[in-house]
C-alpha cells in the first residue's frame, strides 16, 4: 500500500552504496513489515465493509459480521477461504440443530439443556477427532446451537429469527472477508504448498544421504522422524487450504497424496535398512555393512544433483535418470555382494543379515524411484499426463485417539450442564454470555495440545480490550456522528491488535482483543451506551473464559491432544490391526496413522522430550519397521496353500505377535520372540528341501527376511516390555472394537 512505497521512495539521493543499502533496507521492510501492514489493511477493510453493509441492511447485530471477519482473517487467502467455508457450513448445521432442539423442547428446560449438551458433545468430539479445518466446522456447529438456543429459552418464538439473523450476519462477514482476502494483495497458499513439498523431498533425500554416510546418530534420527511426521501433516493441511484457491491444486490432490504416501513408505524402508546396519555395527559385526558400502555409495551419489539433493521438481529429473541407471546396475551389485560374501567365512546369521539387507535395498530402490517419478511429474501440465491413475491413492488423514475425542465431548457437555445449573442459581442476566463463552472455548481449545495456554492468551486479550473499549465507547463514540467517524474512532485500536496477530506469540492476545472489542462496543445503527451492561457483559465474558480453563484443569485433565499414554495405546492397537485385520490399504493406513500419531506426540512435547516420550517415539519407529515386515509376511503367506507347512508356521507366528500387541507383557513378548524363531527354523528347513521351484525359493527367502526383521525389531530395546509389568499396562480395550 502507500506505506511501503513511501519508504521505497527515500533512497534516491547520495552515493550509490548508501542508496543501495537503503534500497535493501526498504526491500527487507516491504518483505516483512510491509506484508504485515497489508494484512492489517486488508482485515480492517473487510471488517468495516462488513459492518457498513450490515448497517445498510439494518441487521440486528452487525458486530457478528465484523467478528466473523476477525475470525476468518488468516494470512493466506486459501486458509481464509477454507475457514470461511467451514464456518458457514458449521453455522448452518448449528442453526438447524438449535431450531430442532428448541422446537422439540420449548417448555422443558431440563430436556432442552440435555439435548443441547448431547449435541455439543457430539460436535466437540467430532472436532477433536479430526484436528483440521473441518474440525472448526464441527466446533461451530456445536456452539452455534448454544448461541441460538440459550437466548431463545426466554422467548422460544424468537428462535427462528435469531437463527436467520445469525446465518445472515455470518455469511455477510465470510463473503466480505473472502472477497477482500482473495482479491486484494493475496498471499497464496499454493506458494507455501510448493515450499512444503520441496522441503519434504529435500530433507528426506538429505536424511538418506547423511545416514548412508553414517553422519546421523540415533538422537538426530529421532528428531528427523518427528520433523518428517510434522512435515507430512503440514503438507496435508497446506493442500486442503490451497484446495480453495484459484489454481489447479484441487485437480492435483491425487498427485500430492501419492507424493506423501510414497515418501512415508520410502522413509520406513530406508529406516529399516539403516537400523539393520546400525544394529550390526553396534554388535561389532562389520562383514555385511562393509560389503554393502559400495552399494550405499552409489545410492548416495544418485541422490545428489550437484552437491545437494534436487531442490525443485525439475531438478529431480536428473535424480530420476540417475536412479534408472542405478536400477540397471543393481542386479550386478547384488551378485557381486553375494559372491564376495561367499568367499569369506560367515555364519548362518550373517547370511540372513545379508539377504535381508539386499532385499531391503532393492525395495528401497523401487520405492525411491517411484517417489522421484511422482515428484518429477508434479509441476507438469495436467493435460500432458498420459491418463488417470488407475488406483486412487488414499489421503493422509489425521485422527485423534478416540478416548481423547470422547473426553473432549464429555468435557464440553459437562461444562454446559454445570454452568447452566449455576446460571439458574445465580439469576444473573449476563450469565448466558459466560455460559456460551465457556462452551465455545471448551470446544475450540480441545484440538489444541495446550488448551490452558490458548485460553489464557485469549483471556489476556479479552481483559486488555475492556479498558480500551471503554475509552472508545464512552469517550469517543458518543461524540461521533456518521459511519466514517465510527471507523476513525475504532480503527486505531483494531489496527494495533490486528498487527499484533501477525506475530505468532501475540496471536491469541490479538485475536482475543479484536473479538472482545467488537463484541462489547457492539456498533449498531442505534448505539446504546449502557455502562452497567457494558461491565456486566465484559465481566461475564472474562469469567466464561476463566471457567473454560477451570474445566480443562478439572474434567479429565490428562485426556488431551498429544497425551503420551493414549498415543502409545493407539500405536499398539494399529500394529495389532496389521496382524489380524483383512481390510484393504492396510499399509497406507498404518503408515499415515503412525505418522499422525508421531505428529501428535510432537505436538505434546514442550521443550525437550522426556525419557518416557522418547521411549514412545522409539517404539513408534520400531513398530513401523515391524509393521511392514508383518504385512509383507502376511501377503506372502496368503499365496501359499492352506496346509503348506510354511503357511502354518507363519500363521502361528503372527498369532503370537497379535497376542503380544494385544497385551504387551514380558511373557507374551518371550512367546512372540520364540514363535518367530520357530517359524524361521521351519522356513529354513523348507528352503533346503530340493523340491521347490525357483519362485518358491524366492518367496521363502523373502519370508525369512521378513521374519528376521520382525525378530530383530522385537529384540529392540524399545519394544522390550518394561521390567515392572504394571508400569505401562497397555491393555487395549479400544483395539478389539476399533472403529474402522
Amino acid at each position: 500500500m502507500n506505506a511501503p512505497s513511501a519508504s521505497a521512495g527515500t533512497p534516491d539521493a547520495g552515493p550509490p552504496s548508501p542508496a543501495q543499502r537503503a534500497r535493501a533496507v526498504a526491500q527487507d521492510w516491504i518483505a516483512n513489515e510491509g506484508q504485515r501492514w497489508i494484512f492489517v489493511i486488508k482485515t480492517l477493510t473487510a471488517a468495516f465493509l462488513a459492518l457498513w453493509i450490515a448497517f445498510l441492511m439494518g441487521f440486528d447485530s452487525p458486530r457478528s459480521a465484523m467478528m466473523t471477519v476477525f475470525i476468518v482473517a488468516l494470512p493466506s487467502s486459501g486458509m481464509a477461504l477454507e475457514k470461511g467455508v467451514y464456518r458457514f457450513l458449521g453455522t448452518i448445521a448449528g442453526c438447524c440443530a438449535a431450531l430442532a432442539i428448541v422446537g422439540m423442547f420449548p417448555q422443558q428446560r431440563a430436556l432442552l439443556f440435555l439435548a443441547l449438551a448431547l449435541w455439543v458433545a457430539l460436535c466437540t468430539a467430532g472436532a477433536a477427532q479430526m484436528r483440521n479445518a473441518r474440525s472448526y466446522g464441527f466446533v461451530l456447529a456445536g456452539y452455534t446451537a448454544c448461541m441460538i438456543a440459550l437466548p431463545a429459552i426466554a422467548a422460544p418464538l424468537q428462535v427462528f429469527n435469531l437463527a436467520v439473523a445469525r446465518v445472515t450476519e455470518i455469511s455477510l462477514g465470510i463473503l466480505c472477508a473472502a472477497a477482500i482476502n482473495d482479491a486484494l494483495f493475496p498471499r497464496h497458499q499454493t506458494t507455501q504448498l510448493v515450499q512444503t513439498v520441496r522441503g519434504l523431498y529435500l530433507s528426506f533425500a538429505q536424511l538418506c544421504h547423511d545416514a548412508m554416510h553414517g553422519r546421523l546418530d540415533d538422537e538426530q534420527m529421532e528428531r528427523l522422524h518427528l520433523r518428517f511426521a510434522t512435515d507430512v501433516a503440514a503438507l496435508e493441511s497446506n493442500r486442503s487450504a490451497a484446495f480453495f484457491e484459484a489454481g489447479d491444486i484441487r485437480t492435483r490432490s491425487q498427485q500430492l497424496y501419492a507424493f506423501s504416501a510414497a515418501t512415508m513408505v520410502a522413509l520406513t524402508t530406508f529406516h529399516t535398512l539403516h537400523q539393520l546396519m546400525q544394529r550390526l555395527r553396534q554388535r561389532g559385526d562389520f562383514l555385511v555393512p562393509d560389503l554393502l558400502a559400495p552399494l550405499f555409495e552409489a545410492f548416495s551419489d544418485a541422490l545428489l544433483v550437484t552437491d545437494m539433493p534436487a531442490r525443485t521438481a525439475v531438478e529431480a529429473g536428473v535424480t530420476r535418470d540417475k536412479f534408472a541407471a542405478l536400477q540397471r546396475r543393481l542386479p550386478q551389485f547384488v551378485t557381486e555382494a553375494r559372491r564376495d560374501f561367499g568367499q569369506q567365512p560367515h555364519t548362518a546369521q550373517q547370511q540372513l543379515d545379508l539377504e535381508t539387507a539386499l532385499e531391503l535395498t532393492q525395495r528401497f530402490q523401487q520405492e525411491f524411484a517411484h517417489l522421484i517419478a511422482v515428484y518429477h511429474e508434479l509441476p507438469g501440465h495436467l493435460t500432458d499426463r498420459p491418463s488417470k491413475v488407475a488406483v486412487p491413492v488414499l489421503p493422509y488423514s489425521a485422527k485423534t485417539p478416540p478416548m481423547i475425542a470422547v473426553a473432549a465431548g464429555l468435557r464440553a457437555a459437562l461444562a454446559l450442564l454445570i454452568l447452566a445449573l449455576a446460571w439458574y442459581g445465580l439469576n444473573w442476566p449476563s450469565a448466558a454470555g459466560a455460559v456460551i463463552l465457556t462452551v465455545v472455548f471448551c470446544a475450540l481449545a480441545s484440538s489444541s495440545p495446550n488448551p490452558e495456554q490458548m485460553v489464557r492468551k485469549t483471556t489476556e486479550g479479552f481483559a486488555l480490550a475492556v479498558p480500551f473499549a471503554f475509552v472508545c465507547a464512552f469517550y469517543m463514540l458518543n461524540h461521533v456522528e456518521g459511519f466514517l467517524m465510527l471507523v476513525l474512532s475504532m480503527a486505531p485500536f483494531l489496527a494495533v491488535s490486528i498487527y499484533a496477530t501477525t506475530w505468532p506469540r501475540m496471536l491469541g492476545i490479538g485475536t482475543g482483543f479484536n473479538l472482545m472489542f467488537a463484541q462489547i462496543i457492539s456498533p449498531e445503527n442505534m448505539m446504546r451506551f449502557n455502562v452497567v451492561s457494558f461491565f456486566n457483559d465484559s465481566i461475564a465474558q472474562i469469567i466464561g473464559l476463566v471457567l473454560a480453563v477451570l474445566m480443562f484443569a478439572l474434567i479429565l485433565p490428562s485426556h488431551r491432544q498429544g497425551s503420551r499414554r493414549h498415543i502409545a495405546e493407539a500405536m499398539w492397537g494399529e500394529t495389532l490391526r496389521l496382524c489380524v485385520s483383512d481390510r484393504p490399504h492396510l499399509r497406507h493406513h498404518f503408515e499415515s496413522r503412525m505418522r499422525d500419531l508421531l505428529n501428535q506426540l510432537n505436538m505434546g512435547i514442550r521443550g525437550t522430550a522426556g525419557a518416557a516420550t522418547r521411549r514412545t517415539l522409539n517404539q513408534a519407529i520400531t513398530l513401523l519397521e515391524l509393521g511392514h515386515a508383518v504385512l509383507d509376511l502376511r501377503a506372502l503367506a496368503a499365496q501359499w496353500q492352506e496346509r503348506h507347512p510354511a503357511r502354518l508356521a507363519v500363521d502361528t507366528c503372527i498369532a503370537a505377535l497379535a497376542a503380544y500387541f494385544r497385551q504387551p507383557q514380558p511373557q507374551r513378548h518371550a512367546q512372540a520372540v520364540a514363535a518367530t524363531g520357530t517359524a524361521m527354523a521351519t522356513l529354513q528347513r523348507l528352503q533346503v528341501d530340493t523340491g521347490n521351484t525357483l519362485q518358491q525359493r524366492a518367496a521363502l527367502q523373502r519370508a525369512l527376511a521378513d521374519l528376521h526383521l520382525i525378530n530383530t525389531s522385537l529384540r529392540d530395546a524399545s519394544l522390550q516390555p518394561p521390567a515392572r509389568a504394571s508400569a505401562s499396562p497397555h491393555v487395549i480395550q479400544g483395539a478389539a472394537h476399533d472403529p474402522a
Partner: protein
Amino acid sequence: MIPREVAVFGILVPSLLFVFLLSVVIHVGVDWLCGHFGVYRRVWHPALFRLCLLVCIFGALALLLY
C-alpha cells in the same frame, strides 16, 4: 419473470438468494474446468479473475431471470 420472493414452507425467501446459490454451483464447475485446463496460469490475477467470473455468472443469471 420470477417473483421477488418465494415462499418455502411459509417462509418468504428472496428469489435472488436461489439465483445466487445456483450461480455459486455453476461457478464451482467453471472454476474446476479453469483449473483443469490451466486457464489460471494465463491470467494476471487468478483470484480476481475467479471473483469476476462469479459476479458475471450471477449478474447474467439475475438479468436473464428478471
